[in-house]
């Protein structure tokens, strides 16, 4: 369904993605995990078209989308919930959901999207998407905007960040149900609960896919210490 072939991405002489190959299938729930700075968000942005790879090919739904723009990909059914949601002035939660759904929404529909992320529509629909909302609220609205859009591939970048555990449990269920029904879910996460739900876990380190597999195999890799081997916290001689 989605295939990345030999994706490379460097900046400032540093390889951020190093020959990444990946295939995602329909109705599967994928979790990407790995240390901070390993290239997870970069990978997501390359799939969404926010970043262009230096080399490599992206195939989605049988079509080569490597040169397609962000909005073309969005229209084909790729959605991305940003790790850090954008702030606006004068744009309300309702406005954003309508833009995402690309049609007028009834109260019931908006309420449905917001309750999935644990927010009450009455309190939030007319709020501006700005710093007046808390970090967790912004994050939930960002997720709701991806749920409101018709997507085949949904990417969530650390959706748990800033969201309390109790609410996140419900959210995780929403993701799971959604995937069973349709499309592909790709979640970037460090949360064990999310890792447990994955059909496949993709482990990234230093821009390379280290392992793709079931939780147990991947986790053992992480805990065996293979992953962090050779990582220097601080090199005093530089």
């Amino acid at each position, binding site marked *: 369904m989605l295939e990345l072939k030999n994706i490379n991405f460097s900046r400032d002489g540093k390889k951020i993605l190093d020959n990444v190959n990946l295939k995602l299938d329909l109705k599967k729930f994928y979790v990407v995990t790995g240390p901070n700075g390993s290239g997870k968000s970069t990978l997501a942005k390359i799939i*969404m078209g*926010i970043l262009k790879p230096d080399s490599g090919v992206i195939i989605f739904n049988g079509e080569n989308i490597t040169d397609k*723009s*962000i*909005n073309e990909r*969005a*229209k084909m059914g790729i*959605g*991305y919930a*940003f790790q*850090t*949601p*954008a*702030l*606006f*002035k*004068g*744009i309300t939660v309702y*406005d*954003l959901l309508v*833009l*995402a759904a*690309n049609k007028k929404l009834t109260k019931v529909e908006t309420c449905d999207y917001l309750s999935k992320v644990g927010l009450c529509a009455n309190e939030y629909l007319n709020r501006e998407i700005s710093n007046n909302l808390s970090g967790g609220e912004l994050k939930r609205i960002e997720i709701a*905007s991806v749920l409101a*859009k018709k997507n085949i591939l949904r990417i969530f970048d650390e959706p748990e960040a800033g969201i309390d555990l109790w609410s996140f449990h419900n959210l995780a269920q929403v993701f799971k149900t959604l995937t069973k029904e349709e499309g592909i879910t790709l979640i970037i996460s460090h949360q064990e609960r999310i890792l447990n739900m994955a059909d496949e876990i993709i482990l990234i380190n230093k821009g390379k896919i280290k392992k793709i597999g079931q939780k147990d195999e991947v986790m053992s890799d992480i805990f065996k210490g293979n992953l962090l081997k050779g990582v220097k916290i601080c090199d005093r001689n530089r």
Partner: protein
Amino acid sequence: MTEIDKNLLKEISEEEAKNASAYNIRKNGKCLDRKVSDYINIVPKEDGKGIDVYVKENTLFGIVHIPVIITESGLTDIVYNDFHIGKNANVIIFAGCGVHNDGNKEARHDGIHRFYLAENAKVKYAEKHYGEGNNGKKVLNPVTEIIMQKSSRMDMTSLQLKGVDDTNRITKATLYEGATLIVNEKILTNNTQKAKTTFEVELKGDNSSTKVTSRSVATENSYQEFISKVVGKTKCYGHVSCDAIIKDEGMIKAVPEIFAKDTDANLIHEAAIGKIAGEQLLKLMTLGLSEAEAEKVIIDGFLR
């Protein structure tokens, strides 16, 4: 009234203005229609160059609508409108000017509005400025002078989104004890339009306060200037913020001035000018909007 007149009126009038209990419609320097009520009187000045609006003391609620339209190329219309708002009165005043200029000469309207708010009076004042037509310049220079007595309050909104080639807007206010002035200004310029706004607020009375918020967008080759001077002479509060987006070759200059003449004066100024934030564009594009569509949504929201 011609179709052009009707359209101009529509462009500059809020929906609520339809319910006006008193109105005065001015076209090309002459009164087109007028209505008064028991509480709100409108009296033309003797030289024909304006009106006096009297709102009686203790008027519980009233809506006043005083639009101006200009359709004559080469006309310069200067008008003095004075608003005398009685003690404890509460009114909404809609003003605005629409210019349709298809000729080659400049069409200009200078509206000088003076507000006298008696003790405890409350005014919501909204003005809209709009221009259309092809050749001749459309120039609007609104001046607003406000004298606010004890505990009075005024909420002013000023909107100019389209078609005005040149504007020099001046708002001056003097606030006495406990008076509150809230101003919201929104301006969008394009082409080679120029817009200059000046706010001068003098906080004279104890516990007087003002909040001036300007949001503006300058696109293409347009130029805007925002000047604000707030003087605090006593225990008072003043907050001025100018938030602006520039696009293409647009330019905006913000000149803030706050002058505290008393240790209890609390004055704040904020100004930020910049292009549309990249992450806002990206977010909307991931929802399927093109870059141009995303920009429009962001600017429309910003100026809402």
